[in-house]
Structures are given as C-alpha cells and as structure tokens.
C-alpha cells in the first residue's frame, strides 16, 4: 500500500499534556510513547484515541527504543479498541523538533505520524511529521477541545 495524503494531527489538550509531560518525566533521557487511533488504507487519519507513554529501553539521552513489552501492550490495546498503533512520539532534549537522520532511517511505518517534542528551549515545542521512503513531510498539529 502506498502511503499518500496529508493529515492533521488532532490532539486534545489532555493528550498534548500527556505527551509533553512524559518527555519532561524522562529527563535527562529521551522519552517515547505510542499513539493509537484509526487508520484508513494503512495511513493514520490524525485522530488519536490514546496516548501511551512507554519506557525508553535505551535509557539514553541520545536514542530511544520503545520497550518491546510496551509495544505488545499497545498492540493488544489497539486490537481490543478496534484501532491501530498510528505513531510514536519522542523527545529531543538538546535539539530542535525535527527528525534526525537516525529518526528518518529507522522510521518504522510510512503510515505513522512522528511527533517530536523539543525541550531544548524554555518552552516545549511539538511538531509532527510523516516519514515516507526517507522523505520528511510536516503534519500540522491542531489542538482540539
């Protein structure tokens, strides 16, 4: 399936706060978490039904790996809710909210959304992307009530 189309990532204030909060909780290491929601044709729609903070199995300030057990739990939760895992967010503790070469190379699923939370400056900055065949496209984030 070819992943096409542009989506807007729609987050509630609560979901946004969970994502950013988990990034702060992970300091000084990078933090990561999984997003659940519907997909159409293998591509995230941008609607998020669950934000799931995960353990960074690397326990590193430079890299992250979603703990496989958290991945399993997320998959099971998605299955029982009739949705899919539609993305992964992670923090950049000392760089901007833009995918690194490693992020691009290791992007798992062309249908996913990849939000990045930069904690480099005083206020957190979240931006989101699709990464398809190593091409980065920004996905606008809309905060819904």
């Amino acid at each position: 399936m070819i992943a096409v189309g542009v989506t807007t990532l729609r987050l509630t204030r609560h979901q946004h706060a969970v994502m950013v909060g988990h990034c702060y909780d992970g300091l000084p290491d990078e933090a990561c978490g999984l997003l659940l929601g519907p997909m159409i044709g293998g591509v995230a729609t941008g609607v998020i039904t669950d934000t799931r903070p995960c353990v960074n199995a690397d326990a590193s300030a430079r890299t992250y790996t979603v703990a496989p057990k958290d991945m399993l739990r997320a998959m099971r939760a998605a299955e029982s809710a009739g949705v899919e895992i539609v993305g992964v967010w992670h923090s950049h503790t000392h760089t901007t909210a833009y995918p690194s070469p490693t992020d691009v190379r290791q992007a798992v699923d062309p249908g996913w959304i990849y939000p990045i939370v930069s904690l480099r400056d005083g206020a957190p900055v979240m931006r989101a992307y699709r990464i398809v065949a190593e091409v980065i496209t920004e996905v606008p984030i809309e905060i819904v009530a």
Partner: protein
Amino acid sequence: MAVTISIPTVLRTQTDGQANVEVDGATVGAVFDEVISRFPGLKANLVGDDGGLHKFVNVFVDDEDIRYLDGLDTKLDDGASIAILPAVAGGA
C-alpha cells in the same frame, strides 16, 4: 497446532491487508516457514542475514518475548497467539 499471528500495519502490504493470519506449526520457526510460504514478501522482514530472527523485529508468544524463550525453536501450544512487532527506535 493452529496458532494466530498478528501482523503489524507496516507488514500488511505483504499479507493482502490481513491483520491476523492463522497457521499451523509446532514451533515459531515452523510457523514462520509456513507464513512465509504463503506470503513470501514477509521473509525479508522476519529473517535476518544469518537465518535467525531479524534484529528489527520482536516476536511474542502470548506475553513472552521469544528472545527470552527458545527463539525460533520456541514450542507452541494449540491456540497460541504470536505477535510480530517492529522495533520502534530513533535517536536525537
């Protein structure tokens, strides 16, 4: 020995869109051989260059990671559920 394999979204392009595939096999390796014979496109994602489990994939039998069981030799009970999950990682 019928078991169910759940396929992650990224690999469903190789399984005609199926999220779950039922196969027979007494071990994870046997089940993989069977599912690869049905969907040959899965091979490159499941099997590494050394013939073992691909390093960017995690496989669970029920709730156990097969790397902590017997790997591809892990024996299966009837009705077991096998989850194939991509390794999700990045850096800085």
